[in-house]
């Protein structure tokens, strides 16, 4: 009997030890004396933050003598936002849409509802817009949004339900149609329906779409972030693609924010705030411009003016802000669902 008692314990103890080992060996534990920042970001900012993190680490070391290391997480904006809400302890978030950060404020009060006033320019240190990437020589002669609804044109864009960039794409197209048809909703919807009827592959994220267009050679035109379009040209084929800037597009403002509840717990508020602040510095703006994001700083923008064509830009305010836009267009039963029915 005694022996059996002992034997009951053995597998249980072993299990417990292994589980404890799993919990104890937590790779996310920050080491002492050093600041560690987790920046949860969206897909196309990988290259930007690799460069910027280095620059800021140097800057911070000079200023305070403290070493700061960075952890980066990238993915679709919605996926990343969800991870933060579910407990991914990001010190700062740098996402594609204000909506995703709003959601953090609503559901878990991770930060203040007025987070967007925390930093200049709606807390968006850099902007971008939506442009077209076409194959070399522009064989289909694509100039503007009108060409995208032509029957023989095949379009690649990610899914607005999952991709932040795709929502900007959608709203840019909607904005164009709105202007063209003087706000006649029926005609706008039929335009959008035609446009999405031409979409061949609807990837879940901006990066997936670029891969489909560039690597799989599917589609005549990719609607993409301007920075993403430049990046693909330079990384994947200088002689294979061209950028076409439409007559009208949307001012995409990817926002940044400090996650109050996390930095207060981890004691990283100071460095996290300086980190985002530094995005507005000359060096930060320069790095943004080098990575094809439009800097807010006018002088630096001028310096890179041949890279950034000027065009008519509508803003998210034309749609009544993200909460409104989300409800009308992207929530279940919104206009996006309608055009797919």
């Amino acid at each position, binding site marked *: 009997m005694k022996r*059996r008692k002992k034997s009951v314990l053995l597998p249980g103890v072993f299990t417990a030890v292994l589980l404890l080992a799993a919990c104890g060996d937590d790779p996310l534990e920050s080491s002492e004396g050093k600041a560690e920042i987790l920046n949860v970001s969206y897909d196309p900012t990988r290259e930007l933050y690799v460069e910027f993190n280095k620059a800021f680490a140097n800057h911070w070391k000079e200023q305070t003598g403290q070493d700061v290391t960075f952890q980066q997480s990238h993915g679709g904006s*919605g996926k990343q936002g969800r991870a933060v809400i579910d407990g991914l302890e990001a010190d700062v978030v740098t996402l594609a849409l204000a909506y995703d950060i709003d959601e953090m404020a609503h559901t878990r009060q991770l930060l203040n509802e007025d987070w967007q006033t925390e930093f200049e320019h709606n807390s968006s240190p850099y902007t971008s817009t939506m442009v077209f990437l076409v194959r070399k020589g522009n064989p289909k002669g694509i100039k503007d949004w009108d060409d995208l609804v032509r029957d023989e044109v095949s379009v690649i864009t990610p899914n607005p339900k999952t991709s932040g960039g795709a929502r900007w794409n959608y709203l840019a197209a909607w904005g164009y149609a709105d202007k063209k048809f003087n706000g006649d909703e029926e005609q706008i919807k039929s335009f959008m329906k035609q446009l999405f009827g031409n979409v*061949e592959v609807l990837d879940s994220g901006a990066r997936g779409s670029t891969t489909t267009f560039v690597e799989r050679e599917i589609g005549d035109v990719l609607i993409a972030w301007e920075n993403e379009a430049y990046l693909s040209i330079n990384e994947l084929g200088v002689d294979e693609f061209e950028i076409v800037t439409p007559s009208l597009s949307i001012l995409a403002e990817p926002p940044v924010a400090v996650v109050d509840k996390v930095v207060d717990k981890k004691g990283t508020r100071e460095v996290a705030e300086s980190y985002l602040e530094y995005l507005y510095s000359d060096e930060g703006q320069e790095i943004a411009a080098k990575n094809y994001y439009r800097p807010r700083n006018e002088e630096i923008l001028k310096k890179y003016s041949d890279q950034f064509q000027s065009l008519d830009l509508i803003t998210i305010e034309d749609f009544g802000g993200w909460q409104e836009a989300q409800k009308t267009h992207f929530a279940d039963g919104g206009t996006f669902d309608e055009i797919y029915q």
Partner: protein
Amino acid sequence: MELTLKKRKKNTIIPGFTMTLGYTMLYLSIIVLLPLSMVFFNTFSMSWSEFWQTIAHPRAVASYKLSFGTALAAGVINVIFGTIIAWVLVRYQFPGKRIVDGLVDLPFALPTAVAGIALATLYSPNGWVGQFFDFKIAFTPLGIIIALTFIGLPFVVRTVQPVLQNLGSEIEEASASLGATRLQTFAKVIIPELLPAIITGFSLAFARSLGEYGSVVFIAGNMPMKTEITPLIIMTKLEQYDYVGATAIATVMLVASFILLLLINIIQWYTNRKFSLQ
């Protein structure tokens, strides 16, 4: 869980019943049952009409049809080719047979994401295989079927193979001596013997295919109503912060899984009983 735990009448002298069963139940509850119950628990926060609206939404319904249809098609392909492969591996000798036999397990061992990327590369219009076809394979339901065929193949081969090995030659000889042609013997004698194994293999492959995600997202194209599988709908809902919606769809999938597993087990009980009677 209402298991009536009763030692059988004829008391066994083997020790450890309480311990092993207790540990099994505990571990099962912590790792599987408690987590899975969360799906149902979360769904209860919806009203019945909300629940119905979510799961009967046209996009969701289209995804059930797609997931079901492609899993079915892949299952059928695997039944046909898997049975042929099992037959070839058991009955014939040819050079390289051992390698072929080992290769069948590849989909078990190869990570699904790797398989997905490799298949998408091969079957996309500019891929090694895709370029030879006038129509698109990757990014259509056809691509999904290919990924699911890849995933499901070993299930059919590995369930049919042992049965085929144990199948004595006596009945075939009897059939032949009674004047049946080879084809008749095959259709009337061998296939019925293999049927339970084929159905089990099919159901296993089918069950696995219904929920498959990693390999499919890379090759599916993910178009709403057209190439959007049910697990992707769950992911999409999650990324829109619609947890309740995601769990509602998950409930539907879970119930489907339960039913399938039950079916598989019933077939197995039936087969086991049949053989223990013989």
